[in-house]
Structure formats: structure tokens, C-alpha cells
């Protein structure tokens, strides 16, 4: 319960800051609209049967780009003021930090999807399948974004405690999120094709998300502050020292 309460408090703080300037939502939203415009200009003239192949890739490419943009900004707030270290030094369950950041990023990505999916439907007539199955579309978007966020939040947090590591996030995140994005891409194609195996694909995505979140929860604290464990003892620690004894013979400097 402490974990959930603290995660809720941190998420409330995130939302409060976001509602003051809408930085994340506006950035993600405008970027999505720009990409949609570019997709329209580039691909709208293709034959309709080519649209079915293009829509899944365009959708998840957009999520990948918006996702890394959002993760960068979510943790830039912490990096600029070093507030992440204040949370790490406080009696805050460290998983609560992960949950709050992941929830915030997921919320922004879902807002992005709320613009992206209707936009793809408008640009590509083959996207009408999204409107025909709104529940499946929403679940697909949620599961795909959740899997992306599970990995992305873990590594963005780890890089946030160092300076100048934004470029590393791009390098690390894309290879690691490829399996999730590919799964989402295949499932999106199944939805557009009206594949009867769609529920099975969605179930597999949900299972993948559970595995990714569990792994991220196990690794989060280690990624942030490093692993504790048996370590080499230095020379003075190897000397037996009774408790309470001053460890080093601190002699006073003679008065000049």
C-alpha cells in the first residue's frame, strides 16, 4: 500500500506540473500531427492495398519517436533540478518512482494515440478497421505503449542520474524496444486484416508486458543506485576493530 500511495503522490505531482505548462502533451501532440502530415504527403497517393502494409509501421514508428521524446522530457525535469536524487535519498519506495514515471509517460503516449489513430484513419481509408473495432484498437494501443514504457522508463531513469546521457537513451532504447514494437506491429496488421487470431495476439502482448514490467521492477533500483553485494575490503576494514573505537588515530595539529 505504501508503494501505491507514494506512486499516486508522485504521479499527482507530475500531473500538477504538466497542467501548468502542458509541455509534454503539446510536444507529443504537435510531433504526432507533424508526422501525420508527412505521412499524408508521402503515402496517401499509394494504392489502397499498400496502405494496409504501411499503417502498422507508421503507427508504431510514431509511438517510438514520441516515446523517446516524452521519456527524455519526463526525466529532463528531474535531471535539471537533480530532484531524482532527492527522491532516492528520501524514504520513498524506489519502485514508486518507476510506477509514477511510467504512468505519466503512458498517459502522454495514450493522448498521442488518441490523435494518431484517428489521423491514420483519415489519411488511409484502410484505417477504417480501427473504427470498426474500437475496443480492440484501444487495447492494442494500451498494450503496445505499456510494453514500450516498461522498458523505456527503466533505462531513461538509469541515464537520468548522469549528465549528458540523452544521446545514449536513443542508442539503447530502440534496440531494446524492437521486440515490443514488432509484436505491436504484427498485432496491428492482424486487426486491420480482421484476423480471427487477434485475441491471441493481444493476449501474447499482455503477457509480454507483464514480463517486461516484472523485469523492470526487479532491475530498477539496481539501475539507479547500483548493486550492493560482497565487495573487496580495503586494508583498514580488514583490521579487526571493536565498535565505538575511533577508526583512525586522529592526532591534533600542534598549535603554531
Amino acid at each position, binding site marked *: 500500500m*505504501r508503494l501505491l*500511495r*507514494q506512486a499516486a*503522490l*508522485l504521479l499527482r*505531482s507530475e500531473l*500538477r*506540473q504538466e497542467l*501548468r*505548462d502542458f509541455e509534454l502533451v503539446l510536444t507529443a501532440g504537435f510531433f504526432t500531427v507533424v508526422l501525420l502530415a508527412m505521412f499524408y504527403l508521402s503515402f496517401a497517393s499509394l494504392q489502397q492495398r499498400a496502405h494496409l502494409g504501411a499503417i502498422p509501421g507508421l503507427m508504431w514508428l510514431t509511438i517510438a519517436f514520441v516515446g523517446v521524446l516524452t521519456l527524455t522530457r519526463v526525466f529532463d*525535469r528531474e535531471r*535539471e*533540478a*537533480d*530532484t531524482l*536524487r*532527492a527522491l*532516492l*535519498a*528520501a*524514504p*520513498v*519506495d524506489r519502485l514508486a518512482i518507476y510506477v509514477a514515471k511510467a504512468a505519466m509517460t503512458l498517459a502522454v503516449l495514450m493522448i498521442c494515440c488518441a490523435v494518431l489513430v484517428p489521423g491514420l484513419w483519415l489519411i488511409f481509408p484502410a484505417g477504417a478497421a480501427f473504427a470498426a473495432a474500437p475496443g480492440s484498437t484501444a487495447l492494442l494501443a494500451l498494450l503496445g505503449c505499456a510494453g514500450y514504457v516498461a522498458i523505456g522508463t527503466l533505462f531513461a531513469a538509469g541515464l537520468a542520474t548522469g549528465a549528458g546521457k540523452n544521446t545514449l537513451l536513443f542508442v539503447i532504447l530502440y534496440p531494446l524496444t524492437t521486440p515490443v514494437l514488432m509484436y505491436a506491429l504484427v498485432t496491428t496488421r492482424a486487426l486491420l486484416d480482421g484476423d480471427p487470431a487477434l485475441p491471441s495476439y493481444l493476449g501474447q502482448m499482455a503477457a509480454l508486458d507483464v514480463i517486461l514490467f516484472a523485469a523492470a521492477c526487479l532491475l530498477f533500483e539496481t539501475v539507479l*543506485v*547500483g*548493486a*550492493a*553485494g560482497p*565487495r*573487496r*575490503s*580495503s*586494508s*583498514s*576494514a*580488514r583490521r579487526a*576493530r571493536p*565498535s*565505538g573505537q*575511533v*577508526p*583512525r588515530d*586522529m592526532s*591534533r*595539529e*600542534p*598549535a*603554531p
Partner: protein
Amino acid sequence: MSEPAAALHGVAQRFGRKVVLRDVDLELAPGTIVGLIGANGAGKTTLFAILAGLLQPDAGERRLFGRAADEVDADARARLAYVAHQTQLYGGLSARENLALFADLRRAAGLTTRPADEVLLQLGLPAEALARPVSTFSRGMAQRVALARALAASPELLLLDEPFTALDAGGRAQLASVLEGERRRGAAVLLSSHDLDALVELCDRIVLLERGVLDRSAAHDGDRAAFRRRAAALWQGRPQDPPRDPLHPLLHPQDPAAPGPAA
């Protein structure tokens, strides 16, 4: 004798090839204020990070509140407070919101916290400033909010990395008074500063961290003038850097006497 609030035995830390701390021994007893001095890059902030649980030492032992602390768990973090060199406040939130967030996080963990307004008044922050975003504050005002956040937790171990930075004379006096109160309450305080006079007025002991080595100190024996002379001698008597052979650390990486790379 009660257990120290914090103790480091043989702690070492390196970042890549750079050795930042070497075989550091330090004890912080309850009801004492220890001053930490050292040149820029001596390893003070790294030392604080290890004590606050933000960094795992590469070697040695860390003990907090009488127990070995391979990891600084939430229970230990509930009993300590760390004020870093940066104020670590959310600029988009007001002072009151920043303090309320951390107070609420403590309460969610079942811990008590003092009213932050009460602590802020002790530190001289005007009440009308509490509702303003921290991004509009001067460095000194933000520093007071950061200190109030730490003090509201009534910690048993208080770690302050250059707390006098950006405080005016009035703020320094108020902080010194607050820290005296913390000492009387039985807290162990470790603070770093480049202001030797402030440390002499406040501290029971001053230790020198020089190139990652902490092996010289001056203790207050009741004679403040003598303590001041010893503290000054401590600072002035720092070993001068020997001529650097750039190849020496590469040829003799295990040589403890080797002048390490600048930390």
C-alpha cells in the same frame, strides 16, 4: 557509548580510473556536528552520496544507526536527511507544494514530519514567498526551502553539502542556530563548507578530505581560539601536490602514495 549514527570503514570509490575516495574512515556520533573541509574535487560530494545511500562504495563498510548498510533501505533513509549542493526542488511547484510533496511521501510511509512552515520561519523565509514557484526564487531562498525539507523530517543524521552557499549573513546565523538545536536534539550532523570560520563556530570536529584521503582532523576541546588555530593549521598544512609524472599512475596503479588523478 552509543553507536555512531553513521560510520565508514575503509571506504573506497573510483569512477573508471579516477580514484575519488581512498580508505576513508569516519564516524558521526549522535549530538555532534562534524565539519568537512577539502579543496574542490577532493571527494566531499561523493562521500555524502555514499552516506545518503545514493552510491554504493566500491570497497569498505558503511554502517548506519548501528547496522551494516550494504544497501540504505527505506528505514534508514527515514532517519537521515541529505541536502545536496543543488537544491533539488521542483521549479514548477511552489515552495509549499515542494515541501508538502515530501511531507506527504513521509506520511505515506507511516512517518511523522514537522510542519514545514514552522521550519521555514526559523530559516527566515517570508510566508508570502511560500506560494510562489521555486523557479522564481533566488538561490538563497531555494536553499532555505531545501534545508526546511530536510529539517522537517527531524532526522537522526543530517548531511549538508555546503549549506551556507548563497545564504546571506542573517541566513547563516539562522541556520547555525537551527543546527545548534539539532545537536541538542541529539542529531549527528556532517556539513561541508569552504567557510572555515563558520565551521569553527559550529563544529565539534573538523576533518580534512584531501585527494580522497581523510586522515587529519582538529577537535574542539573547549578552547575556541585554539580550535580555530588548529583548524587553520589543518587547512594550511595540506600536503602540496608533488610534481606530477603523468606516467606514474599508469605504471604504478596500486601505489597508494601515487598522486591520484585530480578528483
